[in-house]
């Protein structure tokens, strides 16, 4: 029992220790390690936005979105064409949009942040519209139909990006996506500025999700996830709530895509493959704890941590057998991690909260402590 309670902090600590320790030990260079960690933390923060969004869709609404990549892609490309300058007709680089300059007001350093803010909202709206379009024909059907549809759409969008090469420069990728505040700092400092931005966006997304989920709204979602018939018989418009959960999740995925696009500076069709843009996010949510927002964030940290650690291992003098196969070993390790967690902790590192409503949770905790105001027996 005691061990069971300590398991989650232990896993988090070990992963943190290795993520910090391995590069530090190998490079013996403080600045290098810190830079490495800044990039690592930025990636985790971006992935955490996606796991939180997927947690709304799967952990609460029970909607099976197996095409996270589709919303990721739409969000990232939308954000990119909102912040980039218009395409130069003389060059071979072709893309639509390019509103960056048009959106920059000439005061308060407007070009450094206004287009980015607009782009994040645009990305959310574009992903939300895609979600509505997908939901209308499929959401009334059984959940596996949506899973099939979303996989299909994710692949379809990737194909469209490649084939319609006037849209977002096709398979040649869209490069040179500006970063917010990049005009104020040099590249090294900007890495940390950008980490800060990613964390702020993550914090806002977390607050939005946590408040929405742990309320009567989230309670309806958890109810319909388990039993749609009973929830409809409880007077809830199941279709409307499912739609809201799915669309909110999709919009947040769009936000994640936008933050990703700014952070990478270049995106292409291969960025949004099923492994990195869908499967890994599912793995994170499963490992961390579907139905718990803290779990979703922890999952992003643990899975990406493991992913990074395994690559670090390659820097050591490993036997040839392993050295040659390190990329397969990574895939294997992530698979093994999921299986292990599902066997030992089927509900994830941080399982679903017992009480949905935050208000009720506080109330019950107070009365459990024997607070006379709350009263155990009325």
């Amino acid at each position, binding site marked *: 029992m005691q061990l069971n309670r300590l398991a989650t902090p232990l896993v988090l600590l070990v992963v943190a220790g290795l993520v910090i320790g391995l590069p530090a030990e190998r490079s013996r260079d403080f600045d290098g390690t810190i830079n490495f960690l800044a990039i690592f933390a930025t990636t985790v923060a971006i992935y955490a936005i996606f796991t939180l969004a997927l947690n709304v869709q799967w952990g609460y609404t029970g909607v099976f979105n197996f095409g996270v990549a589709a919303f990721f892609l739409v969000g990232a490309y939308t954000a990119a064409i909102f912040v980039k300058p218009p395409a130069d007709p003389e060059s071979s680089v072709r893309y639509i949009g390019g509103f960056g300059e048009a959106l920059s007001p000439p005061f308060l350093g407007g070009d450094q942040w206004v287009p980015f803010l607009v782009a994040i909202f645009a990305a959310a709206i574009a992903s939300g519209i895609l979600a509505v379009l997908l939901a209308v024909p499929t959401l009334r059907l059984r959940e596996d139909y949506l899973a099939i549809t979303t996989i299909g759409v994710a692949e379809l969008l990737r194909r469209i990006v490649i084939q319609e090469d006037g849209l977002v420069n096709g398979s040649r990728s869209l490069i040179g996506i500006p970063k917010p505040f990049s005009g104020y700092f040099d590249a090294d400092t900007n890495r940390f500025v950008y980490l800060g931005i990613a964390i702020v966006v993550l914090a806002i997304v977390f607050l*939005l999700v946590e*408040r*929405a989920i*742990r*309320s*009567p*709204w989230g*309670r*309806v979602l*958890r*109810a319909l*996830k*388990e*039993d749609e*018939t*009973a*929830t*409809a*018989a*409880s*007077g*809830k*418009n*199941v279709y409307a709530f499912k739609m*809201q959960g799915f669309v*909110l999740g999709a919009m947040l995925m769009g936000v994640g895509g936008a933050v990703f696009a700014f952070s990478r500076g270049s995106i292409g069709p291969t960025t949004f493959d099923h492994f990195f843009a869908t499967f890994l996010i599912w793995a994170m949510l499963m490992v961390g704890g579907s139905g718990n927002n803290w779990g979703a964030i922890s999952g992003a940290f643990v899975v990406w941590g493991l992913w990074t650690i395994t690559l670090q291992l390659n820097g050591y003098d490993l036997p040839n057998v392993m050295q040659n196969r390190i990329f397969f070993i990574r895939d294997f390790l992530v698979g093994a991690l999921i299986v292990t967690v599902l066997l030992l902790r089927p509900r994830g590192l941080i399982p*679903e909260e*017992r*009480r*949905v*409503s935050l*208000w*009720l949770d506080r*109330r*019950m905790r107070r009365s459990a402590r024997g607070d006379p105001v709350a009263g155990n*027996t*009325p």
Partner: protein
Amino acid sequence: MSAQPPILQVDLLTKSFGGVLALNDCTLSVRKGTITGLIGPNGAGKTTLFNLIAGAEKPTSGSIRFQGRRIDGLPPHQIFHQGVVRTFQIPRSITTMTVLENLMLMPPNQAGERIWNPWLFGSRVSREEEQHYERAMEVLAFVDLLELRDDYASSLSGGQKKLLELARTLMCDPDLLLLDEPGAGVNRVLLKKLAEKIEALSSDLGITIFLIEHDMDLVTRLCNPVLVMSEGSLLAEGSPDQIKTNERVLDAYLGGQYR
């Protein structure tokens, strides 16, 4: 009693599943303020009738009127909002939520169910939660589940789950309660309590109750009138004593159709 207008009027209701007629021109009515029993052999169409009234399924033909308004074909949540609340034969509480939250889920039109309210008007949602909490505690006291309020609904016994189903319906001021076999699987001691609760709902709160039940003792004790269904339509109607001595009812139960 017969002076009361029917709160629920079912006319020539037919429901077919493929080639099987589950309901065949079923006509019946439930009068306001009564506890009306619905009995009949297995496969008579009782649960199908409830599913149609509550909107879980759509009728093939015929009409259902509740307080004079057509409700057939409406989605379940709209019928709920008209004041018709049902329970299920096999209890369908939300097992992944606590007993308290199963109850707090029920009140209709909660402000906190509109997503912008938890974001922008947290204190309003909190006040509302407080009210629903107080009410849920009263209801739980009424059905004697107060001790289990913070347990997952999945941990309740079969009988307690039946009580929870009843408790859930009391969170939303129903005009008509449809209870599908409230006594099935409930032990004798709990059954007595359940019967008392149902009687109290009718006499104290004036809720009209329409219930399916196989336990004739319970039906005799609670219900007047009793409706008997067989092969998808109404066979007989009367007081429990009249029903017990009705030749056609006995035939239906004993498989008279095969004689």
